[in-house]
């Protein structure tokens, strides 16, 4: 009994749950684990692409990975067209590893930006940038109005759906660092370092004990600039092996572009630990500000620049919120944002490459046994999602659409009444498009992927998760 050779278990080489998929190969890898691409075998959704995210076992032998548990518990509660939807949870009881199944998204901002920088050699279409940003903010506003902070926004975590019913729809992914920040039991800084360094806000870098959803908005600002210029706005070199979020080079990069923060503009600055303690390096240096608008090549009078500068406000209390950003003039002037970010309405649309699939990768840990007698037999999450794929596929062709023309039929969303969310109503919809609820309910999809983003040399760009502490 003690050796796990459980009676009544299937003795196949693959766990039972995996047999409902055709495994195609590995598509991603990160500190949390691996991501595989698979297709559903069953008739109802035959051929539908699924991304399976496998979590590494928790290192310290302290039970189920808290990262996985966080992601599952948050995704179980939320439902929004611009947030990934968890389709299923599978458990490999033999080694207590968890597998999260998401619908597959072919693109992400990291790849889109890279494609433009390295292959196309021209900026991303304005309509596409604006639509990407609008949908990102729309998803983030939903999260924030539900007291969820993402805490790891960066281009590779912002997915975009490929061909299909939801073509060109943004999905915020990777909730492994996300948390609810309503009435926390402990200071948030106890959770350890959050946000990948290039997208980390100044208050985090300066060691604030408490922080707010404004950290996500800083990251959105960085992403916005990157969409415009095709390169990271603040490419600081990360000093590894430090247990605090303080990164001098990163602050240096920020101050070089935005100028030096002052207690006049940011009153609580003087209370931040690293501002106080590192007078020589941080307070001592003088920066000539070349002006953000020069860096991003925008007119200082343009609505785009105005919005960007409000996202990159030093004082988190003055920084624009997601709800406010959605109301910004930028989204009210042409081109209006739309539901399919690729539908530019102009000839010569960019064809983005599909994700490379490593077919040689081994789906490790799956040659073991799967107990078949569980109450939920590893499909715990599926029960209330039955029928989530039940809709017949519409044409997968890629008709061109007029700018801002919604492709999706307006349909009621799933079980949650999103209209009651702050900012979810028509008020935030600049073009009067049925953006919020116009997405077909069967396909809140996502896949999760965190590639090893190339960093600036050896100092690298690894996500900070491994430094996370709990408790």
């Amino acid at each position, binding site marked *: *009994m*003690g*050796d*796990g050779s*459980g*009676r*009544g*278990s299937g003795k196949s080489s693959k766990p039972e749950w995996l047999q409902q998929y055709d495994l195609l190969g590995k598509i991603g890898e990160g500190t949390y684990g691996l991501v595989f691409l698979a297709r559903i075998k069953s008739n109802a959704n035959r051929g539908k692409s699924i991304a399976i995210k496998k979590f590494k076992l928790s290192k*310290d*032998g*302290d*039970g*189920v990975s*808290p990262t996985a*548990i966080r992601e*599952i*518990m*948050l995704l*179980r*509660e939320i*439902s929004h067209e611009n947030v990934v939807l968890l389709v299923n*949870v599978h*458990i490999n*009881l*033999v*080694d*207590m590893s968890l597998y999260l199944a998401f619908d597959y998204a072919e693109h992400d901002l990291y790849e889109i930006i890279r494609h433009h920088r390295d292959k196309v050699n021209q900026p991303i279409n304005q309509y596409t940038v604006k639509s990407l940003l609008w949908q990102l903010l729309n998803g983030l506003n939903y999260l924030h109005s*539900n*007291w*969820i902070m993402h805490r790891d926004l960066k281009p590779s975590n912002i997915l975009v759906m490929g061909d299909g019913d939801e073509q060109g729809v943004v999905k915020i992914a990777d909730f492994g660092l996300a*948390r*609810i920040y*309503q*009435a*926390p*039991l*402990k200071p948030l800084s*106890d*959770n350890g370092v959050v946000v990948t360094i290039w997208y980390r806000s100044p208050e985090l870098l300066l060691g604030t004990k408490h922080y707010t959803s404004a950290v996500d908005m800083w990251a959105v600002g960085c992403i916005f600039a990157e969409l415009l210029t095709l390169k990271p706005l603040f490419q600081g070199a990360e000093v590894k092996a430090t247990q605090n979020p303080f990164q001098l080079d990163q602050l240096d990069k920020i101050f070089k572009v935005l100028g030096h923060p002052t207690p006049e503009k940011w009153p609580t600055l003087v209370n931040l630990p690293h501002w106080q303690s590192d007078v020589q390096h941080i307070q001592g240096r003088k920066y000539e500000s070349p002006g953000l608008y020069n860096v991003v090549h925008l007119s200082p009078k343009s609505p785009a620049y105005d919005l960007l500068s409000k996202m990159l406000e030093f004082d988190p209390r003055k920084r624009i919120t997601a709800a406010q950003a959605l109301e910004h003039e930028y989204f009210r002037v042409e081109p209006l944002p739309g539901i399919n970010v690729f539908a530019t309405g102009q000839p010569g649309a960019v064809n983005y490459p599909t994700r490379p699939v490593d077919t040689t990768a081994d789906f490790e840990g799956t040659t073991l*046994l799967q*107990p078949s*007698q*569980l*109450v*939920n037999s*590893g499909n*715990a*999450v599926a*029960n*209330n999602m039955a029928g989530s794929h039940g809709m017949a596929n519409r044409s997968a062709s890629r008709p061109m659409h007029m700018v801002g023309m919604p492709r999706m039929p307006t349909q009621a969303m799933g*079980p*949650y*009444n*999103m209209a*009651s*969310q702050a900012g979810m109503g028509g008020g935030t919809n600049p073009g009067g498009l049925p953006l919020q609820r116009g997405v077909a309910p069967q396909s809140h999809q996502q896949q999760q992927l965190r590639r090893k983003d190339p960093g600036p040399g050896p100092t690298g760009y690894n996500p900070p998760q491994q430094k996370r502490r*709990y*408790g």
Partner: protein
Amino acid sequence: MADFQTSSHRARWIFTPQELVEKYKEANQRAIEALDKFGATRVEVDIDGTLTYPEPLSGTGGDKHSRAKPLNVDEEKLLRVFYEYKIQDACQAFDFPHKIQATALMYFKRFYLQWSVMQHYPKNIMLTCIYAACKIEENHVSAEELGKGISQDHQMILNNEMIVYQSLDFDLIVYAPYRSVEGFVNDMEDFCQAENGLQMFQLALAALRRSNNAHGVLDFESYLSSVIARQNFLHTLSELLESLDAIDVWIEKHYIPTADELKRIDRKVKSCLDPSSHDKSKKREKKSKHKSKRGSEEAPSGG
């Protein structure tokens, strides 16, 4: 999550008293069937987390009379109640915040909507529920630390972790009325009407009314009227009083088992879980009496 209205808690885990009775009955019935078929009820959770159900009885499996007798629904309930108090004791011993205690309790209650205490011994599940609550509420405590603090085997805590999550359907965000209580106690002027679900709201008010009845701080009914007036309630005073009374009746019905009752039930459940080791476990129990407080001292401390 701030929004109870759209939560998994509200959508999937609010039951009527009748539904609860049904669920307990079904769990009890499943365990009894297992006992009939296999002669034992324990669902073994192995070191790696896999579940093993009892072996079917071979023909020589002993005569009917020596068979363990199953617990009935009421006995199961008493055992659960006892361990629900134990959760509170343990959380207080660790000085955990209310929220963790409430979450652990909720997990424990939800778990035993799926299983009978004859299948998973509640002491083990109780510890895992506390451990899981700490993890989910971002107040991480290692299993080892937790086990040490209450002199229990921490491996048992870990073994059961996945089965607990799974039995909860991974609906791990739960709501407790503490925030509502605080809200009323402070008489917050714009008490967040929409954000607090009605159930939480009523539970908070019911608790405050009971405590007011004991201490007589204010005229509760006129306070309720003022709340209703200020909050544009959809409810009339009499409707609100009715639901508070219903909660009160529920509380009055709450019965805490005596030490003797408990000992008897515990013996019974142990013989159901694993009849063959009954004698062994008796011996073990005697031994462990010296180490940890057991037997009659284990009686509930609360009220």
